C-alpha cells in the first residue's frame, strides 16, 4: 500500500480516538468538578495542562474557568487537540483515503463532524453537554467498530490499529495524570477524596466496571494505577495498547524489526514499573517519560513506513468551527 495512504489511515484512527478521549475527559471532568468539594486543589485549569496545549490556551484566555476551558477543549478550532479539530482532521484524512476505507466509514465520519459542528454552535457547550459528549463517544465507537467489522484486516487496517492504540496509550497516561494531582485536605479526608478521584479516572476510561470485575477490590489508587498501566487485557490499559501495537507490527508490516524492538522496550518499561513507589513520588515524571517514549515510537513508525516526504497540506488544513 502507498506510504502516504498508510500515514493518513494512521492519523484518521489517531484523531478519531483523540476525539473520543477528549469527549470522555471533559465529560468526566465536569462530573467530577460537581462532585468534589471546592478548595482541595482541583480546578478546570488542570484539564488544559493534561491536554498539553497550555501555551496556546494562555495566549488566548485570561481566565481558566469552566466556560473557557470547555470551549477550548471542545469547540476551539485553533486548539490542535480540541474535539472539533480532531474530528475535522479525522475527516480530512479519511476523505483522502476513501478508496481504501469502506464507503460507510467516510459517511459516518463526515456526518459525525457535521453533527459536532452544528451542535457546538448551539447548546452543546452548556445545557446539552452531557448528552452531546455521550453521543460523540458512542459514535466514535461505532466507527471504530465499523472499520473493525468491514475493513479487511490487511496492512491498511493494521495502520488503523496502530494509530488507535498509540493514541489510546497516550490518552490513558494523560488520564492517569489527572489522578496524580496533589489534593489539599487533612489526612483521613484526603484518602477518601483520593479514592474518589481515582474512581473518576477509571470512569473516564470506562474502566470502572472492568476494574471491579478483575481486581475485585474497592477502588484504591495503587491498584487503579497498576490496572491502567499494566493490565494486558483491558483495552484502554497502556500495556494492552502496547501489546496491540506489537502485534500489528509483527503481523503484516514489512521492515518491522526496529519498531518492534522499540515497542518491546516500552512494554518492559511499563511492566517493570513499581507502582507503589511511583505513587509515593515521581508519578508525574514517569508519565512524562512514557509520553516522550510514545512520541519516539511515532517518529520511528513514521521513519519506517511513511518516510517519503509527506505533503504538508493535509496536516495544515484548518477546520472552521
Amino acid at each position, binding site marked *: 500500500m502507498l*506510504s502516504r495512504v498508510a500515514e493518513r489511515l494512521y492519523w484518521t484512527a489517531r484523531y478519531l480516538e483523540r476525539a473520543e478521549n477528549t469527549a470522555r475527559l471533559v465529560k468526566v471532568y465536569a462530573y467530577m468538578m460537581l462532585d468534589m468539594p471546592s478548595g482541595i486543589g482541583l480546578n478546570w485549569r488542570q484539564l488544559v495542562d493534561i491536554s498539553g496545549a497550555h501555551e496556546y490556551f494562555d495566549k488566548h484566555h485570561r481566565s481558566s474557568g469552566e466556560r473557557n476551558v470547555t470551549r477550548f477543549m471542545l469547540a476551539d478550532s485553533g486548539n490542535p487537540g480540541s474535539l472539533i479539530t480532531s474530528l475535522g482532521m479525522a475527516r*480530512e484524512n479519511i476523505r483522502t483515503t476513501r*478508496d481504501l476505507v469502506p464507503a460507510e466509514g467516510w459517511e459516518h465520519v463526515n456526518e459525525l463532524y457535521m453533527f459536532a459542528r452544528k451542535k457546538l454552535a448551539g447548546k452543546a457547550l452548556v445545557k446539552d453537554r452531557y448528552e452531546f459528549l455521550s453521543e460523540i463517544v458512542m459514535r466514535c465507537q461505532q466507527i471504530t467498530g465499523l472499520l473493525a467489522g468491514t475493513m479487511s484486516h490487511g496492512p491498511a487496517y493494521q495502520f488503523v490499529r496502530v494509530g488507535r492504540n498509540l493514541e489510546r496509550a497516550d490518552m490513558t497516561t494523560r488520564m492517569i495524570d489527572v489522578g496524580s494531582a496533589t489534593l489539599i485536605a487533612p489526612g483521613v479526608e484526603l484518602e477518601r477524596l483520593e479514592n474518589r478521584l481515582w474512581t473518576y479516572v477509571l470512569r473516564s476510561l470506562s474502566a470502572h466496571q472492568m476494574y471491579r470485575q478483575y481486581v475485585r477490590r474497592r477502588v484504591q489508587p495503587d491498584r487503579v494505577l497498576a490496572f491502567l498501566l499494566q493490565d494486558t487485557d483491558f483495552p484502554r490499559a497502556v500495556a494492552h495498547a502496547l501489546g496491540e501495537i506489537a502485534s500489528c507490527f509483527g503481523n503484516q508490516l514489512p521492515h518491522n524489526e526496529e519498531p518492534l524492538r522499540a515497542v518491546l522496550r516500552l512494554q518492559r518499561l511499563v511492566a517493570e514499573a513499581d507502582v507503589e513507589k511511583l505513587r509515593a513520588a515521581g508519578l508525574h515524571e514517569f508519565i512524562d517519560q512514557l509520553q516522550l517514549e510514545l512520541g519516539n515510537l511515532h517518529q520511528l513508525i513514521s521513519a519506517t513506513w511513511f518516510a517519503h516526504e509527506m505533503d504538508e497540506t493535509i496536516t495544515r488544513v484548518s477546520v472552521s468551527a
Partner: protein
Amino acid sequence: MEIEWKSYDPGEFYDEMISSPGNPRRAARAIAGYLQRLSAKQLGRRQHAADLAIAEMGVTFTVYSEGTNIDRTWPFDIIPRIIAQKEWSRIEEGLVQRMTALNMFIHDLYNEQKILKDGVVPEKLITGSKSFLPQCIGATPRYNVWAHICGSDLVRDKDGTVYVLEDNLRVPSGVSYMIENRAVTKRVFPELFRKHRIQPVDDYPSHLFDMLASLSPRPLDYPEIVVMTPGIYNSAYFEHSFLAQQMGAELVEGSDLVVGDDDCVYMKTIAGLQRVDVIYRRVNDEFIDPEAFREDSVLGVRGLLRAWRAGNVALANAPGAGVADDKVIYTYVPAIIKYYLDQDAIIPNVPSYRCEDREQREYVLANLATLVVKPANESGGYGMLVGPHATAVERNKFVNLIKRNPRNYIAQPALSLSTAPTICGQHVEPRHLDLRPFILQSDRTYVTAGGLTRVALRKGSLVVNSSQGGGSKDTWIVDTGAG
C-alpha cells in the same frame, strides 16, 4: 408543489418530458403519470430524502475560486430526464463514430500528418495550437488510441435536433455524479425501477477498469492500475477517489510516483517501490511531467513522458490528445469523420464561425448580441461570452479579444437549449439542460447508457457547469419496447 402537467409550460423550448402542456412524451408517459399522483408533501419529502442521501454520501465538488477548500454538495433534482432507447441507440452510434475518427485524427497528427498534407485541416492550425505537443510526435500508443476516455457535451435545440457542443478529450469529469445520481434515485423512487426498463449505469467502473487493463504494457493477469489525482483541492477530487475505489485501484498523487533509471514508473509503498503499468491520470498535460512540460509543476512525476514514450507505462488519456478538443478543431470534426471513415457525421455539430476566417470574423463581430463566443482552449465555461445575456461592456471586451487573437475564438448561434421539469422551491418549472455521455475506447468502444444531465438551476440560465451554479439530474434511457 403538486405537479400538474397541464399547467407546466416550457413555452417555445423543446421539453424533454412533455410535447405540449398536458401531453407527456411516449417514453416519459409512465413517470409523468406517477409524478402527478404524488402529493406536494410526498414530492417534497423525496427531494429532502435525496438531499440527505447526497450529503451523507459526501458527494461534493470543490470550487476553484474559493480560497479555502470548500466542498459543496452537488445540487440534485429528483425528477429524472428521460430519453427513449430508440433515439439513444442512434446517438450512441454517432458517439462511437466520432470518437473513432477523432482518435485516428490524433494519431495521424502525431505521425504521418496525412490530413494536413491533404489540406483537409490547415497545417498552421495544428502547429499554432497550444494543445499540440511536439514532445509526442512519433509516439504510437497501443491500438493507436490516444483519447481513451471522452465526455462529449450534447445539447438539443428548439426543433429537437441533438448536436455535439464540444468534445472533452483531456480529463473529462462528471461520471461519478452520473453513478451517484442513479444510486440516489434508486433510494428515492425504488418502485419506478421495479416497473420500468431503465438501462443501468453502474457498470461504468468495471468497463473503465477493463479498458485501462487492456492498455497494460506487461501481459499480466493483474496489471497495476492507478488513478492519478492533482490532490484533494481539485474540484473533481471526489470523482478521482470514487473511481479508484470502485475499480480497486490505488489513488496516487504525483509525489507517490517516481520514474526509475530503467524508465519504468514506480509507486512508493510501505514495502518499498512497486512498478505501475497503467495510469489513469486526471492531471492536465502541462502538469504531468516537470521534465517535459511545465518545470514548476509539483503535481506531476519527473520523467513520466520518457517512461510513456519508452512504452513502459500507459497513460490514459495519452498526452497530447487534447489537440482534438480545441474549439477550432471542433469545427472541422464533420470533415475529419468524412476523411477517415468516409461517412457523414451521425450527430451534427452546432453551426460554428471561425474568427480566424476574415468573412466569418466580420459576421461574428457584427452579430455578437446573438452569438456565443468561446475561446479555443478553455473548459468549464470559463472565458466565454454569452451574447444575448452580456452587457455592452462585456461585448466590447470580446471585440478586442477576438481582433487581437482571432485563431483563439469561435462563435456559435445561442441555441435554445431544451428544458425539463425541475423542482424549484415550491414549484416545478422548466430548466435548461445538456447531456454529457462518456465514451471509453481502446480496442473496443463503450458508451454509457445516457450520461450526466446537467441543469441550469437559475431561471432562464443556459450555463449548466457545476462551477457556475448548475445542478444535475439522473438520466434514464427507457425502453418502451415499441418503435
